[in-house]
């Protein structure tokens, strides 16, 4: 029940703070609950997966998530997530805690410093994205404009998804925090397309890693199911109260919570937490 309440609150905060459920779930649950990190990571991936499965259909139907952009990226990220999961399960727990702590603190820095570009300037598509026909068009509801978009730096972007996939698998974090900057700031996809496609991407990236954790026995239903339900219900509520809450305040709160959880993971890894 405590887990259900905690993940429900996390689901609300995740929506308001503009982060995925996974990036909050693993550091907070591993830092403040008695579950071993092996099970927390398995549950974290399933939580992120469930959120992506819930949001994916709507995002795809609306055209905000792009299947053409997602398919090549997902292939690389999901393959590497398998590697990350295997490495993460093979490493000693304290090493994973140290790396997790460092990664969470790095995410905090990214959240503090990363700019977002609503409509990046992409002069022309690169050769790879032209061959793969990664481009699209959507209607920006806030202005009524029709936006044609395309991407560039596709080879570099795909290389970064190697690292993103490995980290997603290793830490069970879900990777949305990294997908959006790469899609938006590096490859030049509009922010809405990047956020929506990232959310949908998690349903594929996290699937591959989740299977590794499941097959290794890292799933305890009493942890996973309340967490899934809590995050999904919290997300549902979060979307509704997003209209009235100041997102900036929530974002600072998320950064603070993550920083605390990151430090806790770090000290746990050093054996002093």
């Amino acid at each position, binding site marked *: 029940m405590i887990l259900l309440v905690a993940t429900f609150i996390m689901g609300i905060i995740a929506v308001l703070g503009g982060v995925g459920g996974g990036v909050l779930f693993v550091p907070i649950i591993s830092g403040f609950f*008695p*579950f*071993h990190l*092996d*099970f927390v990571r398995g549950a974290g991936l*399933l939580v992120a*997966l*469930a959120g992506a*499965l*819930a949001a*994916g*259909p*709507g995002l*795809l*139907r*609306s*055209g905000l998530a*792009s*299947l*053409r952009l997602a*398919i*090549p990226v*997902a*292939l690389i990220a*999901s*393959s590497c997530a*398998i590697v990350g999961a*295997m490495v993460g*399960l*093979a490493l*000693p*727990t304290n090493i994973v805690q140290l790396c997790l702590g460092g990664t969470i603190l790095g995410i905090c820095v990214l959240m503090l410093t990363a700019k977002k570009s609503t409509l990046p300037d992409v002069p022309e*598509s690169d050769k790879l994205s032209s*061959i*793969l026909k990664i*481009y*699209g*068009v959507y209607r920006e509801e806030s202005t009524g404009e029709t936006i*044609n978009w395309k991407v560039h730096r596709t080879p570099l972007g795909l290389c970064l998804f190697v690292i993103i996939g490995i980290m997603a698998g290793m830490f069970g974090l879900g990777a949305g925090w990294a997908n959006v900057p790469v899609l938006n700031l590096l490859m030049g996809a509009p922010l809405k397309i990047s956020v929506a496609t990232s959310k949908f991407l998690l*349903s*594929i990236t996290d*699937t*591959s*890693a*989740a*299977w*590794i954790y*499941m*097959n*290794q*026995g*890292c799933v*305890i*239903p*009493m*942890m*996973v*199911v309340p967490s*899934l*339900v809590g995050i999904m219900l919290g997300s549902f509520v979060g979307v509704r109260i997003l209209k009235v809450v100041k997102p900036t305040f929530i974002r600072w709160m998320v950064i603070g919570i993550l920083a605390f959880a990151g430090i806790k993971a770090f000290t746990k890894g050093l054996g002093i937490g």
Partner: protein
Amino acid sequence: MSQDQKIGPSPEQVLYANILNKGMLIGLGVLLITFALYVFGIIAPYVPLDQLSNYWGHSVTEYLHELDIPTGWAWLGMLGYSDFLNFIGIAFLAGVSIICYMAIVPTLLKNGDTIYAVLAILEVIVLTAAASGIFGSGGH
């Protein structure tokens, strides 16, 4: 780049979304039912609920060893226990993307989108390989 694209998702994108939605609802529904059977004690679990907290702080290697729980797809042979019944819904949710990818391959081929059809088939192979349990782990 084509400048006269229509707004809106492609047919394969809509197909993927529809299957994903149905799969998500079915998986979630199954999960909620099996979890109710588990948490309300309607079917007995393998690990009694009051003893679970003694083990969830251990590493997965210790947990599996102390409770003599097999790994991989061996849970299929333990569906008589309510805790393992939950794996049906979890496995379905984890597997729905494979079904979606398989479903769009014919549409992609029909449209002459051979590159994406190949990418989709490769993804099916990757996800199926992950699901199969062929990737071992050294454990802690």
